[in-house]
């Protein structure tokens, strides 16, 4: 495992904590009826987005899912713009017209959350092909869920990426349930990673609650992609603390299951392990916690104080204008 610098450790914790605070706040705001539309929360899966994006720069790309807030934050999208987008405000990342499932920021290489399950795979092939044709060393990380793994688009995307040796890593976030369907019910292979061999790419399984495991695996896969050796499939298994959507009664899973995963909480795990090794101090981590909470509160204030888009803006940015 490559050395992880102190700065990287701090960045990892800061991003994971920011995601957790953001999602907990969004849950609260949604329950109060303050947010329009639907929200799908990422709490519990922070180690995956952050462990992968720790290796990426703004010149690299990610494609995301309907559960995209964590990916956005890990890729450096401004949380004020994200929160404003959830409130449907003009200062939002998509000027308030996209909402939770469409947050994008191309300047950060974030090609968009995606309301279409499995919609990110073909987009990742597109940005991967762009990198290959233009000769850049950009890598695209394609995040998708266990439900998306069963969609035709993902099979096509992984096959295409393999035959063209595209610089794409496919990161399956197996949070155990596709909406309410357990992964072992919908996945004939029973391990999504097993499919890598059929796509002629390495397929590996990692603990998605352990940011160090994800960091190491993603680092190797991204380095391989940058060397021009083609795509990798990583299945990272974790657990979403909230329901599929906010309001989901969660009747399909057991309290014991949740308790088991809470015991392996990605943030608690990180904190305990770096403190035991004297790599960071409790004061440093506490300060990050406080800053994350304040940043999210500030994002809410920013969003609430922002204007709604004007009615005449309704069709702006919706259709491409041809000369």
């Amino acid at each position, binding site marked *: *495992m490559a*050395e*992880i610098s102190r700065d990287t450790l701090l960045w990892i914790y800061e991003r994971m904590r920011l995601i957790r605070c953001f999602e907990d706040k969004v849950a609260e705001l949604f329950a109060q009826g303050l947010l329009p539309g639907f929200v799908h929360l990422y709490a519990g899966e922070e180690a995956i987005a952050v462990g992968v994006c720790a290796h990426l720069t703004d010149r690299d790309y990610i494609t995301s899912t309907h559960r995209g807030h964590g990916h956005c934050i890990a890729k450096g999208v401004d949380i004020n713009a994200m929160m404003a987008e959830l409130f449907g405000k003009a200062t939002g990342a998509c000027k308030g017209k996209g909402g939770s499932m469409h947050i994008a920021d191309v300047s950060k290489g974030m090609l968009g959350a995606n309301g279409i399950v499995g919609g990110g795979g073909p987009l990742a092939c597109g940005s991967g092909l762009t990198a290959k044709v233009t000769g850049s060393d950009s890598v695209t990380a394609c995040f998708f869920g266990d439900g998306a793994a069963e969609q035709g688009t993902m099979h096509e995307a992984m096959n295409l990426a393999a035959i063209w040796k595209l610089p794409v890593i496919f990161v399956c976030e197996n949070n155990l349930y596709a909406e309410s369907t357990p992964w*072992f019910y919908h996945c004939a*292979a*029973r*391990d999504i*990673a*097993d499919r*890598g*061999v059929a796509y002629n790419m*390495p*397929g*590996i*399984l*990692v603990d998605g609650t*352990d940011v*160090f*495991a994800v*960091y*190491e*695996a993603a680092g*190797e*896969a991204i380095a*391989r992609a940058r060397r021009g050796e083609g795509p*990798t499939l990583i299945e990272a298994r974790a657990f979403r603390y909230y329901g599929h959507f906010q309001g989901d009664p969660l009747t399909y899973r057991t309290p*014991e299951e949740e308790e*088991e995963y809470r015991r392996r909480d990605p943030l608690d795990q990180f904190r305990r*392990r770096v403190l*035991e*090794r*004297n*790599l960071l101090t409790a004061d440093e981590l506490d300060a990050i916690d406080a800053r994350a909470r304040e940043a999210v509160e500030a994002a809410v204030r920013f969003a609430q104080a922002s204007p709604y888009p004007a009615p005449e803006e309704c069709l702006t940015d919706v259709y491409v204008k041809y000369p």
Partner: protein
Amino acid sequence: MSAVGIIANPASGKDIRRLVAQASVFDNNEKVNIIRRTLRALDALGVRRVLIMPDTAGLGLRALDGLRLSLDARIIEMPVYGDARDSTRAARIMAEAGVACIVTVGGDGTNRAAARGAGDVPLIPVSTGTNNVFPVMVEGTVAGLAAGVIAAGLVPADAVTYRTKRLELYVDGELIDVALVDIATSRDLFVGSRALWDPGRLREAVLAQARPGTVGLAAVGGCLTTLSPRNTHGLYLRLGAGGRQVLAPIAPGLVVPVGILEHRLLEAGEEVHLDPGNCTVALDGEREVEVGLQQTVAVRLTTAGPRVVDIEAALAEATRRGAFDLAWEAPDGPSGGC
């Protein structure tokens, strides 16, 4: 007629060595096939009862799906966590149920976990990958036949099993875990994706086996001496640049120079104190334990490892006793010479 246990690990054969080396891919469907072949062999030998570990991928259930058997094969009832606890718990339940032997389908880690619960029940370890030392690459049918002749009482288990070694890991004087093949310290600060493939990161190792013809640390030891699973000695290695260098297959497809600063044979019962300091401890090739600066690490070599069935010996002995001879009738008419 005794029962047989089957423990198949759905997580084996899919770690990062598929990405950083060329480790073989052993998917769950093939594990299901191995269980089926094992069950068919047990059925053919008249074994009446088989206990199978439940698991997150439903390997046992899928193996039984549509398979017509005379024997009674059951998935045991127990909580499933999807980690090593499952194999340990299943082995304990099987041992308590009085199985004659347990067929394990997995890697070194699977067997380590099963050994913790199996007690004196012998294992028949079937490898599901190219990076394993403890289990053997054997066809599931053959493993099933070996299990069957023991469970059916066609050969006495004691005659065809042997006791292996066990390495005990002590951190701050407390027994933390055991390994069956090797224990090594790595400069890696975190367990991460678990596998070891960079010899430059290794500090020290204690080996229960040193064998040319294997892959991993046992192969490094195999460049210096040969210690079979039945030999009671162990081998200590201090690794690093500046001393002797050997060329060893440290992972599948990775045949690389490995620096050895010191090596010495260990006697059974001997305890080795490893250098303290921030490190991870790898058991049987997988980083498992993170150790802090102030903690002490010691490894003790014992001969208290699990019993293992010598598959070829079991089948040879069964053959010698006529276990596979079915009814024989003389052909009609005068017999011809040849």
